[in-house]
């Protein structure tokens, strides 16, 4: 656990609490995708969160072996909750880049957007119309794609996010989650 403490930015106590919760839910020590989806759907019962949970799982499973161990889990959490702004934006980019090729295409963004809308269910505001994900993707690309080449690279992403007030403000929220 000392090794974990060094590599992540959690204290011993926080690691203990996280591990106990983790082990309680998955006594065998690793989470597979089914469990992930299950847990996630309990937090968002009003919509269908399975697609989003799938993308999340891909993002957490850094060594691509189909299961998330406690180390993977804690690394991911540490970046999101205790990392620098750059780290967090990096992690978000990783989440969006479904095929991990270094750039986000419109199709990938559309998939992500649809999964988020699915998860929110009927409680999105404004009320969702069928084309809303597509329009949302368009406005996102307008904002992020600076050289208008149809894809968003990591630098473009980080740059545009830093320029956006709202996003920076939201990022501050993660500081006191645990």
């Amino acid at each position, binding site marked *: 656990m000392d090794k974990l403490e060094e590599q992540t930015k959690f204290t011993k106590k926080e690691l203990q609490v996280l591990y*106990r919760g983790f082990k309680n*839910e998955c006594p065998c020590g690793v989470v597979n995708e089914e469990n992930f989806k299950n*847990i996630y759907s309990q937090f968002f019962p009003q919509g269908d969160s399975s697609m989003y949970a799938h993308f999340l799982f891909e993002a957490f499973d850094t060594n691509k072996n189909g299961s998330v161990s406690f180390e993977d889990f804690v690394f991911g*959490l540490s970046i999101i909750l205790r990392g620098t702004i750059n780290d967090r934006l990096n992690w*978000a980019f990783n989440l969006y880049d479904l095929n991990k090729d270094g750039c986000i295409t419109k199709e990938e963004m559309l998939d992500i957007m649809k999964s988020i809308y699915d998860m929110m269910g009927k409680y999105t505001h404004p009320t969702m119309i069928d084309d809303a994900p597509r329009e949302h993707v368009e406005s*996102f690309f307008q904002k992020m794609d600076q050289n208008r080449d149809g894809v968003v690279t990591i630098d473009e992403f980080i740059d545009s*996010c830093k320029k956006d007030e709202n*996003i920076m403000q939201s990022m501050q929220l*993660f500081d006191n989650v*645990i």
Partner: protein
Amino acid sequence: MAAGVAAWLPFARAAAIGWMPVANLPMPVAPTEKNKRQDELIVLNVSGRRFQTWRNTLDRYPDTLLGSSEKEFFYNEDTKEYFFDRDPDVFRSVLNFYRTGKLHYPRYECISSYDEELAFFGIVPEIIGDCCYEEYKDRKRENAERLMDDQEDNKDAKLPNMTFRETMWRAFENPHTSTMALVFYYVTGFFIAVSVMTNVVETVPCGSSPNMKEVPCGERYTVAFFCMDTACVMIFTVEYLMRLFAAPNRYRFMRSVMSIIDVVAILPYYIGLVMTDNEDVSGAFVTLRVFRVFRIFKFSRHSQGLRILGYTLKSCASELGFLLFSLTMAIIIFATVMFYAEKGSTSSKFTSIPASFWYTIVTMTTLGLRHKRRHGNVRKELTNTFRENI
């Protein structure tokens, strides 16, 4: 499940990073938890055995004794622990409920003590997990039956101010309550026996007139047997009417099995009185006399053992029904096969599938027909197959 999932709340909040960059408006601030203190161990001392758990574990179910502030009543300042003067063995199950979210019922535990402990700790038994729920329900039902039996035993004490009708009903139900009841009990028993014996003796051949063949006694001493029959039926009718009068709930009494048996036992006589000398229905009337044998079932009131047999049959009715059903299935299958196997042969006795039912039934119950040698080796092979299967 919910308890463990609460520990994943930080993860759920962290996952919000996914939609943050695409959100058009800033995210709302998450509610901060006030007085979020560090998790601590608390000690529960149950009759000397110490259990320790995290405070958060108990807080998962705030509507129980341990999860709410009600446990503060049991706090011992000197030893800094919560002391409960209850059974430590059952407490194990209670505490496991907080830990795992599932309530289990241990088989060796007495059902009433378990229920008491659950009531004390404010846990509803309905949340018992599926694994133990059947066992719990069975034991509870047995206990309820035992209590009902106990109550019935206690009813022997004579209550003052009972109406004549209630006295009569008690006399009928419990013959030991008074001498009259006992006399009545034995008299009816005697007459049931006489009636059954009469039915039997009626058919015995007893001596012959010189020019005719042996006649059964019933035909020889018609008048005597008729008088016996009438007397018995009189007694039974009177008994039935008295019971009907004394019954607290007449409608329920009329629907009960024993009263139906009574009615069936005396009805043939009255029907016979009504329709004598009518040739067409006399055949039916003879068949009706068969029902007189049901008088023997009236002995159930006199024999506890017979009643128990009845209850046993009733309680495994579904199993017996299934047995009957599977036998019927097998009979139909084999009868069909037999019929089609012998269809070609002209001298076959199996003219239709129902005709082969008889053969199948007799073979399956291993009675065996004594059949003459026939053609049809197929049948022999099939017969051996049946015998091996049963």
